[in-house]
């Protein structure tokens, strides 16, 4: 096995395109486990951390749009320490910060969590709800892809040969908007989501929801986007939250396994949808005050 540290995106693409059995390394918290357990035996490791921008969190304001760009090798701990990002996207950051232990947080990345394509990745639903765009670089140039289009099945992504993700873009929101992510696990820390739910919403000056999006994790082969129109036009009163919960329960297509039954997971999807919406609503109101 070779170890390569490209300095540019083009060099990384060339290395990945030249060797289809090469693997990208950023945080390594999944890659090294698979490597050591013999699940994969790549011919080369391509460490992208030395490429400019991979470890940066920046605020972008271009004709194509304004928002936050998070490099593919930014650790989840670094996201949690970035006051501007935490203020702008508390739900995305709280999802990212739920992955693993303090030690894992120091290395793991949202992009790794996404490209791992596990159905229960904690950082993924809030990215979906945020309408994040994933920047993919490859031999045919660069493309921006909705989060939902990256995973296709457990462990499988839509990335093609020579491609890798360079960053996540979170579009800027109005001031009176916010998000939240909640997961259910049977313990308090260090576990895989039985259900995860993110809600992202925008309010008008009167506190009425003008736009909302919702995403569920761990209740299907990949992350789901769920219609959140039930709370649009409301002030997140009980009746509209009940309707949102019903939409989440209806949309969830979980499996029965040792961590939860189908009925339990569908029910919890609704409970988390309500709670996440309430938190996002409170945050959005606070942000507009």
């Amino acid at each position, binding site marked *: 096995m070779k*170890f390569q540290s490209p300095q540019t995106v083009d060099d990384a693409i060339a290395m990945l395109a030249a060797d289809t059995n090469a693997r990208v390394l950023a945080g*390594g918290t999944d890659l*090294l*486990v698979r490597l*050591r357990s013999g699940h994969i035996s790549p011919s080369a490791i391509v460490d992208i951390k030395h490429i400019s921008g991979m470890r940066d969190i920046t605020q972008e304001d271009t004709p194509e749009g304004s928002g936050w760009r998070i490099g593919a090798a930014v650790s989840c701990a670094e996201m949690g320490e970035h006051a501007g990002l935490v203020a702008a996207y508390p739900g995305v950051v709280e999802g990212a910060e739920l992955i693993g232990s*303090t030690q894992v947080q120091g290395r793991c990345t949202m992009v790794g969590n996404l490209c791992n394509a596990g159905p229960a990745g904690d950082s993924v639903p809030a990215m979906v709800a945020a309408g994040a765009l994933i920047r993919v670089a490859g031999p045919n140039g660069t493309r921006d892809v909705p989060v939902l289009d990256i995973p296709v099945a457990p462990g499988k992504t839509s990335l093609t040969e020579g491609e890798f993700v360079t960053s996540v873009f979170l579009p800027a929101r109005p001031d009176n908007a916010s998000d939240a992510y909640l997961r259910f696990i049977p313990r308090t820390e260090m576990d895989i989501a039985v259900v995860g739910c993110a809600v992202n919403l925008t309010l008008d000056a009167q506190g009425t929801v003008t736009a909302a999006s919702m995403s569920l994790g761990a209740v299907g082969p990949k992350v789901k986007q769920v219609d959140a129109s039930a709370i649009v036009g409301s002030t997140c009163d009980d009746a509209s939250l009940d309707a949102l919960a019903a939409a989440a329960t209806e949309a969830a297509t979980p499996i029965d396994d040792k961590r939860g039954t189908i009925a339990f997971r569908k029910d919890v999807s609704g409970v988390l949808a309500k709670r996440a919406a309430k938190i996002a609503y409170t945050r959005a109101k606070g942000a507009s005050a």
Partner: protein
Amino acid sequence: MSRIHVNTTVNGDAVDYLCEAEDTLLDVLRDTLDLTGSKEGCASGDCGACSVLVDGRLVCSCLVLGAEAEGRTVETIEGMAEGDTLHPLQKNFINKAALQCGICTPGILVAAKNLLEKNPDPSEEEVRYWLAGNLCRCTGYDKIIRAVLDTAAEMRGAA
């Protein structure tokens, strides 16, 4: 294939070594540099017994490749005491019997020291969350948490 030559800093000393691409930082520390304080418990990032700091960031050295340490700063349990003078956490772990078999202890000390540098006055809950990735199979958690909290109070008093 020729081995990879890595230049790094370990506990303040410039160090260079040769490693294979698949060698973890933990392999290098223990088997090449003879720094056997960091332990291999799970080799999958679950137990925290191999905790070290890389550029000041707490990580599991079993989840870092040796080759990645090029140009970085690595701190291990061996750098915690100053000569014969133990760090207050080390003293309190001994005095308060916060260890049984001792395999988890180096990782917990490295992690706890990092916590107290970031937050000199942590709550019990904050200590428990911070150390959630450090497993103790003797399950002596209460004494560990109390030793960390007592050390924090002592160090604040001394400051």
